[in-house]
């Protein structure tokens, strides 16, 4: 096993990996940018090195700088987390050349899976089921012809893409050209590569993915599925394991395909095969994520395993300590991604100082957090604060438990999307597992979110709220909010005045 591991990431996932290393007796090396000096991962690591200014490309994406720290600290391996350099084959290759083990798959497998068109070709060759469409980048003309053949609606996707960037849904030939060009230019902006391809659009699909683990001795297993259909603009918001629509037979089939896909790509370490599932429960390969997923904790809860421990063991050359037959699922787990963003205001990011943080705990609750009370969430990165995961014997109990935990959870000083989760978890379609990737966008575009979230007619509660607002004003303790650090009294007035003005001017409803 490694003696020292560098974590090339920040936030909750850096903390997650540091915890795993500590549990395994491995020293940890953190890297941080200028604005992250006081971040949790810096305090928690055994060593920490500044690698540059706030912008990610000058720090967390700076391969040279990170390898220099690895050399200096004599780290034997690098865990990339997710995001940043985690799916960058050049980084993996540079690690290898620098004599540092990259904790993830070989660069060749990353490259294969990183190009959606190449991945499609390879997976089709391996017999993996696919949504009808092209398996390579297309010109506008080719794309128009293919769209006519597989019929609208179709989806245009960036070949180098991910995270919803460079994607366009097209429902008719008339909008095709403008969408195609918009997708190309967004792909170019986001990934430096304008190549796009085409797929038949599946109406109301579910997003279900299979976790795989492969050691470096040819053993590959799958750890059940995750249902990730609750998405906003193609970004996962809630994930669960198992999926309500996957039975033992479907799980075996999807798992076999996932293992086949990973094996044929020469894959090692942890990875995820994402599938679209249509209303007849047919499943189609979507893409492979060649890294640890944000949502790995739900799999950990239902399998009883620790994926980061296993990643470290695999990367250090150990064999998988179990066979497929040893994997059993038990209970149900749900994860909510808590973001610093305002669900009542178009999900605008809400960085700033966390003046108060009350965290849920107790039975069946796990929180993987990257923040603490008093920490100022910087502007510069993904605004995820933490992941809240609930486990219970069955899905209904897990939902109830998550609601209980959300009621306990409180973030003061900045906006968070906590109110959104309560709304989702109370929705009859979510409760009955009638979810697909359009569920959340439909929910959000329905009745005014604002009026839903803010209680109007609960009279007892509004009485209490009115009195409490006055009590807070009367007992105001100094709260420093943001870099200006006004006293509470002064701020109360400024804040109220601003809010009043904002309301009058209709800004809040934007």
């Amino acid at each position, binding site marked *: 096993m490694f003696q020292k591991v560098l974590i090339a990431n920040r936030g909750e996932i850096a903390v997650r990996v540091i915890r795993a290393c500590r549990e395994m007796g491995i020293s940890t090396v953190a890297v941080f940018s200028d604005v992250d000096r006081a971040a949790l991962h810096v305090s928690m690591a055994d060593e920490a090195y500044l690698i540059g200014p706030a912008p990610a490309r000058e720090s967390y994406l700076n391969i040279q700088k990170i390898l220099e720290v690895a050399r200096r600290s004599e780290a034997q391996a690098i865990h990339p987390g997710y995001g940043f350099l985690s799916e960058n084959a050049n980084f993996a290759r540079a690690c290898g050349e620098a004599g540092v083990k990259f904790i993830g798959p070989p660069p060749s497998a990353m490259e294969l899976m990183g190009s959606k068109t190449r991945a499609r070709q390879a997976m089709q060759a391996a017999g993996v089921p696919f949504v009808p469409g092209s398996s390579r980048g297309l010109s506008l003309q080719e794309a128009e012809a293919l769209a006519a053949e597989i019929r609208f609606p179709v989806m245009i996707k960036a070949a180098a893409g991910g995270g919803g960037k460079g994607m366009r849904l097209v429902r008719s030939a008339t909008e095709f050209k403008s969408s195609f060009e918009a997708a190309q230019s967004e792909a170019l902006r986001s990934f430096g590569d304008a190549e796009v391809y085409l797929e038949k659009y599946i109406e109301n699909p579910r997003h279900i993915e299979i976790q795989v683990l492969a050691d470096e001795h040819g053993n590959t297993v799958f750890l059940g599925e995750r249902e990730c259909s609750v998405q906003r603009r193609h970004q996962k918001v809630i994930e669960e394991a198992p999926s309500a629509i996957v039975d033992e037979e479907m799980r075996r089939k999807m798992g076999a395909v996932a293992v086949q896909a990973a094996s044929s790509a020469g894959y090692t370490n942890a990875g995820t095969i994402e599938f679209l599932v249509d209303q007849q429960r047919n499943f189609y390969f979507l893409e492979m994520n060649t890294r640890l997923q944000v949502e790995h904790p739900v799999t950990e809860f239902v399998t009883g395993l620790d994926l980061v421990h296993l990643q470290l063991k695999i990367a250090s050359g150990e064999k998988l300590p179990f066979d497929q037959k040893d994997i059993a699922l038990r209970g149900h787990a749900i994860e909510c991604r808590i973001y610093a*963003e305002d669900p009542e*205001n178009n*999900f*605008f*990011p*809400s*960085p*700033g100082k966390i*003046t*108060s943080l*009350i965290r849920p705990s107790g039975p069946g609750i796990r929180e993987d957090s990257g923040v603490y009370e008093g920490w100022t969430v910087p*502007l510069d*990165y*993904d605004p995820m604060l933490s992941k809240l995961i609930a486990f219970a014997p069955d899905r209904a109990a897990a939902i109830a438990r998550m609601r209980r935990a959300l*009621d306990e959870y*409180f*973030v*003061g*000083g*900045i*906006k968070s999307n906590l109110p959104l989760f*309560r709304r989702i978890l109370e929705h009859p379609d979510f409760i009955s597992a009638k979810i697909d990737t359009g569920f959340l966008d439909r929910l959000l575009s329905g009745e005014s979110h604002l009026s839903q979230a*803010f*209680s109007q*007619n*609960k009279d007892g*509660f*509004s*009485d*209490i*709220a*009115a*009195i*409490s*607002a*006055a*009590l*807070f*004003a*009367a007992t105001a*303790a100094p*709260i420093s*909010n*943001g870099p200006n650090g006004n006293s509470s009294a002064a*701020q*109360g*007035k400024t*804040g109220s*005045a*601003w*809010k*009043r*003005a*904002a309301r*009058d*001017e*209709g*800004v*809040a409803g*934007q």
Partner: protein
Amino acid sequence: MIYEVTVAAKVRKVELTRSESGWLCKLDGRELPLDVVTTRIGVLSLLLDGKSYEIKQERTAGETNIVVGNHRFNAVVRDPRSLRSRRESEAGAQGPRKITAPMPGKVVRILAAVGDAVEAGQPVLVIEAMKMQNELKSPKKGVLKKLNVTPGAAVEAGQALAEVE
């Protein structure tokens, strides 16, 4: 102390008097036998007729919300004795409409020029924060009267960026 509190679209009058055993509270003239304890900064425990309420104050740069159990209420508190507060309130009710930054960020694009006619809801500028771009829209139909920022400018939450009249 007397406060005017706007909650759930209603203006309520709250009178608070410190007594030896805590606070005496009147809501719209009605006395409530309230037992109040501050447990943490920004958190109160209230008992009223046996019911227990945990109240949290959710303050951000822009606004104050009061969380009662799992119900959230926007709250605007006014101390009627404060003259400044009253003046600002009156000023805010009229005049041209401002476009304000809802969070700190950077102006990346400006989509209209001073003097342009704009529709209600028409995007006027784009702000980027935390890798996301967000359009700020005109609050009303009118003419873009002022632009206080240029592309690349860093802005604070609550900062007035433009004005439509």
